[in-house]
């Protein structure tokens, strides 16, 4: 008789488990407010420093559309790096991971944590992006493209951070490892997101490239960003059971 396995489970069971993890994450977060406070404080502090140095009273206006998209994504990256890895690391540090390993399907657990990271990052973007535009006195030529870039980039940032956080959770020197591992994982995402944001601020596609037939350069770059999101999420779903269980 073949060995029974916990891997094949009905879809409804899987969704229920992922939803339970998502709800638990937010319940715990709303009680402790650790990640919310960390992300918001880091983002607002950085924003104030950037605006005081490079805002309307700082940098030459002509350089804004080149420099500012980089700064926006750096603020989002470092704020995410400060708060998101805690999700898995905290489970190991407080020894709650054992109970989770014995009760949750790994892929459902990953998706529940990812959904939590996504909503947290969406909240961060909803706070940071309008503030950034306001303090930098920026006009957005293509607001739709900016929203799409923030959505797709935020998804990739959450998926990449969740994957790396899951990998490093059981290791020593978690902070260093997160930086080392997240660099190659998140670099393509950041390059694409910065180019698209530049295009959204300046109008047209990514700078230096005119509109082409079909999707245009911006559309192609957005598709690449979505492909990146899909690839990282798929990699997470495939790798997580291996790194989570012995």
């Amino acid at each position: 008789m073949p060995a029974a396995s916990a891997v094949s489970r009905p879809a409804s069971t899987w969704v229920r488990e992922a939803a339970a993890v998502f709800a638990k994450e937010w319940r715990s977060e709303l009680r402790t407010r650790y990640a919310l406070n960390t992300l918001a404080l880091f983002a607002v502090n950085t924003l104030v420093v950037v605006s005081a140095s490079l805002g309307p009273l700082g940098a030459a206006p002509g350089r804004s559309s080149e420099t500012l998209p980089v700064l926006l994504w750096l603020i989002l990256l470092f704020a995410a790096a400060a708060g998101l890895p805690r999700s898995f690391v905290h489970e190991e540090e407080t020894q709650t991971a054992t109970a989770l390993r014995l009760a949750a399907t790994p892929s459902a657990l990953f998706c529940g944590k990812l959904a939590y990271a996504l909503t947290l990052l969406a909240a961060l973007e909803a706070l940071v992006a309008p503030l950034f535009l306001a303090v930098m006195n920026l006009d957005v030529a293509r607001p739709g493209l900016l929203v799409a870039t923030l959505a797709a980039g935020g998804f990739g940032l959450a998926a990449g951070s969740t994957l790396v956080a899951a990998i490093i959770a059981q290791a020593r020197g978690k902070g260093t490892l997160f930086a080392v591992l997240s660099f190659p994982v998140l670099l393509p995402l950041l390059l694409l997101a910065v180019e698209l944001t530049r295009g959204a601020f300046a109008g047209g596609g990514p700078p230096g490239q005119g509109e082409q037939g079909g999707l245009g350069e911006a559309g192609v770059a957005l598709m690449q960003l979505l492909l990146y999101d899909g690839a990282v999420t798929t990699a997470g779903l495939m790798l997580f059971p291996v790194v989570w269980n012995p």
Partner: protein
Amino acid sequence: MPPALSFAQVRRRFGRLAVLGGVSASVATGEVLLVTGRNGSGKSTLLRCLAGLLAPDSGTIDYSEDGAPMDAAARRRRIGLVAPDLAFYGELTAAENLAFFSRLRGIGRERGDELLRRLELPPDRPTAALSSGMRQRLRWAWALLHRPRLLLLDEPFQNLDAAGVAIVRRLLAEHLAPSPAAAGAPGLAVVANPVPLEIGSVAGNLDLGA
């Protein structure tokens, strides 16, 4: 077909340190396997291997329920574990912790409420504010939540007062031999660091020595 657990020549090293050097035993329904030995002899390591939380370097672990053998992933989901390093979410109450794991396991909240009542746990106190004895009772509630057939108990009476010991001994006796009115089938247990149990039939005493 009743559940049964057997393992043979289970070995596990941590680096150069050989913790388990070829351990074998078997347990059948209604039986308890006692695992004894000094500190560091590998009792907890053996239980973690049996639970599927640690992969042995070599050896076999066979566990089946209703005639169906289970791999490590399936075993992880089925067993009930009480262990000193098992912890719960400190910011959530005991009831919320059990409700979360009930949802993960697809069982109603009533079972968690029943166990909270039987173990005399305060449902609305954050877990971080529970005493060590109360946390041990919560570990028992968590382990029994999904009515597992195989219980792995590592220092199961740790930090419990006399009343707590009496409650969990009753629960263990019911697990091994449920009353005809109870819904569950008889289970089996592996107990590390046991106090004299006098519960169930002893399958053997596996002494891991020094």
